[in-house]
């Protein structure tokens, strides 16, 4: 099951479906990544940033009150405590350092919720590389605090007004920029998506989450958990915590956004549940599960959580779902909101609406026994960015 870098695919998924202009850049990136991923100096420097800048390791916290309420023993992996408020920094520090080693003069990125953009801004500032972030115009409104955060750190935020004005359009625009500036610019993709080597590389940089959980749960329980639950947009926090457990006897649950309704029309999906409802297709340089209509036009997706609002998903998740190694599932907007309030009230932790989808699934599934006795939930981020959304819902 281990993915070799020389293969660009996970089963039939993945690959490199990009304009010819970009092919040499992908080859170059793969070469540099292979060269440095096990390099002692590179990893020492990365570890330093992860520890002293990002604040790793993040705690694995036994949520006593939530466990009592939901009826299963719950540990929370506290990525919400990482600098910037989400797991996204693990990836941007890795890619930022690699970009520095590659001598790249400029970083571009896409962002949905603004969390990845914020993490890019942090990495860009730390490594001294000018950074520009494409963000759907709609998202710049619903996540305006993150826009301001990025700007404070010297990053230029470019609103994208094409298409549905959300994450998928921001990715399109970032890819167009990369095509024009490929020789000087590193495209810092924010999840386990895009053409090879991004899905593999981002997974590896995020795997620090799962590696820590292995040690932490052994210390606390003397064994691995029965199940791990993570919300899934592109799938980077999920693959980050799953990957070190893929070959262990641990059940993996990828929780997608059910939105307001699991229905789709010819133009839009009222959800973002790509693994649950998508079909094979090619989007953003990869073959994966995609929300699309019968002709192959990509649908506009929807979720209360901007970070889950994406019509594609990482190819490795599509593969693991196909072979039955992970279970795709979903939580609705309303269920996520409920779980958000549970975690606030019972544990004094305000989770991101994205992460609240994972909590909500545990609330639903605990009673059935499906999750076993001990479950780890990846709290991929903190909810400060979502307060306006939540306040709006209460009115």
């Amino acid at each position: 099951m281990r993915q070799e870098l020389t293969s660009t695919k996970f089963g039939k998924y993945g690959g490199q479906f990009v304009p010819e202009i970009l092919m040499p850049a992908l080859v170059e990136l793969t070469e540099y990544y292979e060269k440095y991923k096990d390099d002692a100096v590179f990893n020492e420097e990365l570890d330093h940033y992860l520890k002293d800048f990002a604040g790793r390791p993040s705690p694995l916290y036994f949520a006593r009150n939530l466990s009592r309420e939901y009826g299963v023993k719950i540990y929370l992996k506290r990525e919400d405590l990482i600098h910037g408020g989400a797991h996204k920094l693990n990836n941007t520090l890795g890619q930022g350092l690699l970009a520095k080693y590659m001598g790249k003069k400029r970083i571009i990125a896409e962002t949905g919720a603004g969390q990845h953009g914020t993490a890019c801004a942090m990495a860009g500032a730390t490594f001294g590389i000018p950074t520009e972030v494409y963000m759907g115009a709609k998202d710049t409104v619903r996540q305006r605090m993150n826009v301001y955060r990025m700007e404070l750190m010297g990053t230029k935020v470019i609103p994208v007004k094409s298409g549905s004005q959300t994450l998928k359009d921001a990715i399109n625009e970032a890819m167009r920029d990369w095509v024009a500036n490929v020789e000087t610019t590193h495209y810092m993709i924010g999840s386990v998506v895009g053409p090879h080597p991004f899905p593999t590389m981002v997974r590896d940089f995020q795997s620090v989450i799962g590696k820590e959980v292995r040690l932490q749960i052994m210390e606390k329980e003397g064994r691995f958990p029965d199940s791990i639950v993570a919300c899934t947009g592109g799938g980077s926090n999920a693959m980050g915590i799953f990957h070190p457990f893929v070959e262990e006897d641990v059940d993996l649950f990828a929780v997608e956004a059910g939105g307001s309704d699991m229905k789709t029309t010819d133009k839009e999906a009222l959800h973002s549940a790509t693994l649950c409802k998508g079909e094979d297709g090619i989007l953003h340089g990869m073959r994966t599960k995609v929300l699309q209509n019968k002709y192959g036009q990509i649908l506009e997706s929807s979720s209360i959580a901007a970070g889950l609002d994406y019509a594609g998903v990482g190819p490795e998740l599509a593969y693991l779902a196909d072979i039955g190694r992970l279970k795709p599932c979903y939580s609705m907007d309303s269920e996520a909101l409920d779980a958000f309030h549970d975690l606030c009230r019972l544990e004094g932790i305000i989770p991101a609406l994205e992460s609240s989808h994972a909590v909500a699934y545990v609330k639903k599934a605990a009673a059935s026994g499906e999750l076993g006795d001990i479950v780890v939930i990846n709290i991929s981020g903190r909810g400060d960015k979502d307060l306006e959304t939540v306040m709006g819902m209460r009115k």
Partner: protein
Amino acid sequence: MRIAEKFKQLKAKKEGALIAYICAGDPTPEATKEYVTALVRGGADIIELGMPFSDPVADGPTIQAGIQRALDGGMTPDIYFRTISSLKLHIPLIVMTYYNLIFKRGLDKFVKDCAASGISGIIVPDLPPEESDDLLQICRKNEVDLIFLVAPTTTESRMKRILAEGTGFIYLVARLGVTGARADVAVSTGELIKRVNTPTPKAVGFGISTGYQAAEIIRAGADGVIVGSAFVNIIESRKNVPQRLEALARELKEGAARG
């Protein structure tokens, strides 16, 4: 008509080819028929018709907007093939689209629909040779050309592979970036034309909008020029569209023939 045959005719006349792109269904299927006729009247040697895809990553703002107008006008792959079948052109016709539309229709069905509706070539900007084996085989079986792109960044080893596999013509991407009309000719264009060493015809696209540029590119050794955004700009303006498409095609064709 096969693409190779067209280039042979032009070579005998010592003329560069004008390959004219517009997006099918922009703004309606009926308009497309009228516009294609105008381009042919103006002297286009090959027509390239875009099949609109929701997420066109290789296209700049002009063609993106054209694609959006076509989608808003209700264009689908089914309507596309129906429109094409009714065109009855005496010059080669090429479909340009993104891979997901081909994949979703089924590679076999897509290529057969092309052959049946008179399309002689396929361009897929997000399908590099590494991923194209399946489509290439089916194209060969159905005698439809799969046209590959090379870019200024293409390395020698990849260039060899692309030149060995491409038929019809080789599409030279003139500059780093997405589609869009420009006033100049990039220095990299001339270098790329020299690097592409093949008996297959070479056509240069991305950024060409004037007869002067067309002449310069043919003079640099290309066999044809591909022009899209400059035509789509005219469609966007909605003013005297057929007349102006014809006039621009004539200017470009004169440039290509003179170069």
